[in-house]
C-alpha cells in the first residue's frame, strides 16, 4: 500500500495582500523523489517553507504523515527533515554543535551513525569542530544536508541543496538520498534548476508557475524523456510554460 507522506490541499499562501501560491494540490508518497521546477520567483521556496511550517498558509492544508502542520506541528515536524539555506546557520557554533542541537531538538540521545558516516564521506569530519563562520559555502551546504537527515526523517525537504557542492559531494548526496528513497525510508521533495538531477533521480517532477502547479510529469513520462533527446525535459518545460501563458492570456482577453 502506498503511504502518502506529504499531502497539500488547496494551498494558498501570500505575503500581505500579494498571493504567492494559490490552489496548490500535491501528494508525495514514501519512496518517491519529487522535483519541484519553476522559474525564479514562481513560489518554490515559499512552498517549501510552508511545508516546513515557517510560513502560515492563508488557506488550505499541509499534512505530513497525516498530521496537519498548523494544528499538530510537533508530530508533523518529527517526520520532517528540512534543509535550511546555508546563510541561516548559527555562525558562532561549530558544525558538531549544530548537529548536537538538532539531535536534541528531535529528542535523540546522540547524533546518528549514518549522519556521522555521511559527514565522513563528505570529508567534513575534520571541519566539524570548527566554527561555522569559517566554512565555505559548500561546507555549509553539506552541514545543512546533514542537519536535514539527523532525525531519519520520513520527508526530506531540500531547497537548491546542491548549489555550491563540489561534484563528488553532490554525487554522494544524490546516492544517499536515492538509497533512502529506494529503500522506502523517506520521500524527498527538492526544488532545483538542475535538470540532470531531475532526469537522473526524480520519480516525479512538477512545474510551479505563477504560484500554481501547472504540470506534473510522472515516472513513465520522465523515463521517456531520459530515453529521448538530450533536451527533452527543457523542451517539455518550455512547452508547459508556453501553454500556461497562452491560456492565461486568452482568459484575460
Amino acid at each position, binding site marked *: 500500500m502506498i503511504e502518502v507522506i506529504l499531502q497539500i490541499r488547496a494551498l494558498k499562501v501570500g*505575503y*500581505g*495582500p*500579494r498571493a504567492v501560491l494559490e490552489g496548490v494540490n500535491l501528494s508525495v508518497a514514501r519512496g518517491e523523489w519529487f522535483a519541484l521546477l519553476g522559474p525564479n520567483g514562481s513560489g518554490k521556496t515559499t512552498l517549501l517553507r510552508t511545508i*516546513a*511550517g*515557517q510560513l*502560515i498558509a492563508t488557506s488550505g492544508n499541509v499534512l505530513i504523515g497525516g498530521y496537519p*502542520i*498548523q494544528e499538530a*506541528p*510537533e*508530530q508533523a*515536524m*518529527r517526520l*520532517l527533515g*528540512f534543509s*535550511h539555506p546555508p546563510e*541561516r*546557520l*548559527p*555562525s*558562532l*557554533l*561549530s558544525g*558538531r*554543535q*549544530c*548537529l*548536537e*542541537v*538538532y*539531535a*536534541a*531538538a*528531535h*529528542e*535523540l*540521545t*546522540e*547524533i546518528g551513525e549514518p549522519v*556521522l558516516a555521511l559527514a565522513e564521506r563528505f570529508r567534513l569530519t575534520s571541519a566539524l*569542530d*570548527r*566554527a561555522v*563562520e*569559517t566554512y565555505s559555502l559548500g561546507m555549509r551546504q553539506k552541514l545543512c544536508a546533514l542537519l536535514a537527515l539527523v*532525525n531519519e526523517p520520513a520527508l526530506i525537504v531540500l531547497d537548491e541543496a546542491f548549489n555550491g557542492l563540489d561534484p563528488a559531494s553532490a554525487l554522494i548526496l544524490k546516492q544517499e538520498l536515492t538509497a533512502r528513497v529506494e529503500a522506502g525510508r523517506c520521500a524527498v521533495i527538492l526544488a532545483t534548476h538542475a535538470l540532470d538531477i531531475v532526469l537522473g533521480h526524480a520519480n516525479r517532477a512538477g512545474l510551479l508557475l505563477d504560484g500554481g502547479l501547472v504540470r506534473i510529469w510522472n515516472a513513465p513520462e520522465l523515463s521517456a524523456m531520459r530515453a529521448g533527446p538530450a533536451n527533452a525535459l527543457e523542451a517539455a518545460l518550455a512547452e508547459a510554460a508556453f501553454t500556461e501563458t497562452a491560456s492565461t492570456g486568452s482568459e484575460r482577453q
Partner: protein
Amino acid sequence: MKQRNPLLYLLWLEWRNLLQGTGRSRRRALSLLVLLALVIVPALVGLAAIWPVLLPLAAPNSTAIGVLVALSSSMWTHGGRIRWTAFYLGGWVSTLPVRSSVRHRVIAVRSFALSGVLIVVLLAALPLLNHAVSSASALTVRLLLTCAAALLVGSLLGWWLPARARLSSASPSRPMVLRQVGGRASLGALAQWGKLQTRRWFEPRIVSRLIAPAMLILPLGTSANLALALVGLWVIILYLLITLRATVHVARKGGDWLRPTPLRPARLAWAIGSLPLLKQLQWTLAAVLLLGVLGVRPLLAARLAEGWLAFATLAPTLVLAQARGVRHMRLRALFSFSLLVGLERWRSQWVIPAAALLCIWQLRSSTKARI
C-alpha cells in the same frame, strides 16, 4: 538630460522606497513613523518636564558634556565613514563608473547623517526647553548650542581621523576548536552561542572605546576609589547591555533556525536563556554593590536591579515568541512593558513575579501558535 549623481540618486531611491514602499515595506515604514512619533514627541515632552531639574545639574558641566558628545559623534561618524567606504568601494555599487569625488560625497552624506539629524532635533527642542525654564533661558541656549557645536566638531574630527584597517566582523579570527570527539545530543551549545556572541561584542577594542566617555566625565579631584567604582559600574552596565543584546540575538536566530523541529519553546527558552540570566543576576548584584559604594540608597539600587532583571528576562522571551510565529507581538510587548512599568511605579515587589508570569504567557502562546 541633466546628469545626476547616481549614488546620491540611489540613496534618494532607498529613502523614497522606505517611505512609499508597497505592501510589507509600507506597513513597516508606517510603523516606523508611528513609533518615531510615539518616542520622539513623548521624549521631548518628558525632557521639557524634567528640564528644570536637569538644567541646574547639567549647566555647570556643559564643557564635560560637550566633550562627551563630541567624542561620541566622532566615534559614530568615523565608524560610519569606515562602513560606508567599505560599501561604496567593495559593495555592488563599487563597479559603477563614477568619479571618486562622487563616492566621497555620498559617503560623507551617510556618515554625517546621524549628527545632522541630532543637531536639527536639538535646535528644534530649543524653544520648547526655553519655555520650560523661561527664567534661565540663556543657560538652556548655551547648553544646547554647546551640544550642537560639539556634535559638529566631533563629527568633523571623526571624519578626518585616519582610517585604520579594520577586521570584518565576519572574519574567522578565532577558529574555535571546541571538542574533537563525541556527538551526544545536547542543547548546551545554545547557551554556548550566547556566551560566544557576548564575547564577540564585548571585545577589548570595543570596550576600551566605550570606557573613554566614562573616564572623561569624571570631574577633576575625584578620589581613586570613587573613580574606580564609577568606571567599574560603567563596565558592568555595558556588559549587562551586551549580554542582553546577545541573548536577544540568539533567541531570534535560534528560534528561527530551530523552527522546523519539534523542540518545545519552553525548552528552547531555557537552553538559550538560563546561563545568560545567571550572568545577569551575578553582575546585577555586583552593580547593586557598586551603587551602594557610590552612595545610592539600597532600596533604590534594589528597585533598579529588580526592574532591569525583569526587563532582561522578558525581552528575549518576547523575541523568541516572535521568532516562533506568535502574532500581535508589538501589542504584547507594549502591554507587557507597560504592565512592568506600572508595577514598578506602584507595586514594585510584584515586578519579578509579573515578569515571570509574562514570560510563561509568551511561551504558552509560542507553543500554541508554533507556526
